[in-house]
């Protein structure tokens, strides 16, 4: 069985900027794949190319078995797109929007009406009546947008930063909706700036930096790349930072020190063992800690690790 998305050597430049610089990516059918990266990494450019909105300068792009450049219409019949900005007619109501899009997907007037009703029900929008979308909350708008993307039960669904700008409740709503799709056989490609979001939703995570793929693997594999869990220790007295580095049961070379925040941070692969060791050593030496915490690596840390030397060409790390 072929992959749902095949990207080979795709390039796209805007003026002097290489938005995508020879990108390769494969997404298996029925999986959720996250594209993680900072602003300007090329995530949105890739989604726009995959959803036939943008033509690549070069390379191969296949979506649901069809070439996205030469057979755009075949691709369009098989995809759903949730862009960064709500792709809805703001003047019209939710039902009006869904019925219009349904007719444009050529479902036929009756089927479009039935499908609109089903989706409004499913996304908790059945009681919105004729209210114009511009009066919806951010979360409602996102759910309607998602409903519009699902009108035809697409084979491949693109979600471009689906929760950016939403409050925690709106984010939870969108996450729940995406989870409910998984298992239905839909392939999902999701872009995000949040490691947590990728972690929560995706089977695999691809990390993008300056238009190239710098890593591709499961969340655990990526975190392992960044050194796994970390321990943070905030001292009461910043003057004791140097002494603390020496006496704690940590490899001094791996400890990073932030003087302003009176913070020590180090890898803590052993988790509880490291935590108890650190607490005991602090107490024995009489060094007062304000806060001690175990945490997962942040996106920044994964990212800094993966793009360690900005001067060098980022090598692709396949894990």
């Amino acid at each position, binding site marked *: 069985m072929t992959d749902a998305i095949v990207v080979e050597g795709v390039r796209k430049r805007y003026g002097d900027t290489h938005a995508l610089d020879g990108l390769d990516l494969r997404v298996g059918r029925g999986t959720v794949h996250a594209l993680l990266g900072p602003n300007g990494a090329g995530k949105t450019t890739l989604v*726009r190319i995959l*959803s*036939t*909105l*943008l*033509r690549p300068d070069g390379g191969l792009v296949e979506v649901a078995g069809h070439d996205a450049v030469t057979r755009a*219409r075949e691709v*369009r*019949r098989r*995809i759903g*797109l949730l*862009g*960064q*900005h*709500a*792709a*809805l*007619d*703001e*003047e*019209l109501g939710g039902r*009006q929007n869904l019925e*219009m*899009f349904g*007719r*444009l*997907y*050529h479902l036929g007037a009756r089927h479009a009406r039935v499908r609109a009703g089903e989706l409004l029900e499913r996304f908790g929008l059945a009681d919105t009546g004729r209210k*114009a979308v511009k009066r919806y909350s951010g979360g409602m708008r996102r759910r309607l947008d998602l409903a*519009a993307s699902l009108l035809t039960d697409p084979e491949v669904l693109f979600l471009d930063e689906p929760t950016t700008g939403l409050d925690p409740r709106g984010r939870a709503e969108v996450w729940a909706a995406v989870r409910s799709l998984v298992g239905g056989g839909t392939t999902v490609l999701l872009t995000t700036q949040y490691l947590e979001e990728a972690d929560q939703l995706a089977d695999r995570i691809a990390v993008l930096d300056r238009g190239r793929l710098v890593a591709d693997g499961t969340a655990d594999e990526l975190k392992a790349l960044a050194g796994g869990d970390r321990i943070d220790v905030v001292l009461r007295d910043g003057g004791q930072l140097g002494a603390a580095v020496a006496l704690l049961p940590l490899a001094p070379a791996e400890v990073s020190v932030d003087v302003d925040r009176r913070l020590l941070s180090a890898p803590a692969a052993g988790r509880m063992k490291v935590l108890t060791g650190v607490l005991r050593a602090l107490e024995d030496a009489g060094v007062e800690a304000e806060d001690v915490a175990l945490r997962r690596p942040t996106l920044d840390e994964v990212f800094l690790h993966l793009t360690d030397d900005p001067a060098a060409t980022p090598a692709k790390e396949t894990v």
Partner: protein
Amino acid sequence: MTSYALNDSWTMTRRELAHWARQPAQVLVALVFPVMLLLMFGYLIGGGRGVDGEYLDFLVPGMFALTMVFGLEGTMLAVTQDLDKGVIDRFRSMPMADGAVLVGRSAADMLQSALGLAVLTAVAYVLGWRAHGTFGAFLGALGLLLLLRFAMLWIGILLALVAGKPEMVQAVQILVWPVGFLSNALAAPQSMPDWLGTVVEWNPLSQTATAVRDLFGAPGAETGHVWAAVAWPLALLAVFFPLAVRKFGALDE
């Protein structure tokens, strides 16, 4: 997939009609504005420089043509507003017929302009204006006006696609007004300095206004301009229609 072209264009036209139903006030303002202009120029400013005979016979066809040209702004505003919203991305990522978005836009705008002409005609009638020609000539005049509007529509679409943002419409408005008034819509070119009169006579708006006066049988109207009033809009369409369609297809590339 061309079998869907009509279907999709109709869906997009219905979308525009649904907008009207949502905002009747906006439609009303668009219909009332030319009426206000007619009343203003007919009575308040009391122009008619260089015009022989009844000023209404001269002014009403001019106002009709001017209204068609000003329609460009409405088209441009609507298209830029659509582009500014994400909804265009959804349309473009769907398997709908190419051009259905633009066809829907033009159908709705032409309908609005036809309605505008009907209202303006009714008001002019109340004011005492009469078409003196045959009914066939009357319909021909309306056809010429709508043809001019159709040409303006595609210029508006292209300008909107080039400008991209609703804020840019203001810049175009500044350009549309002189084009609208540098015509024989309100005053006869004979009353103007020679160079200006020449510019004014070449203005496509003037050609349509003159032809429409002729078809309405306005006393003292110049004859023989009907072909120019057909040729000018067709020439504009031949240039701007393909440019607009191409620009729309190439959005974002």
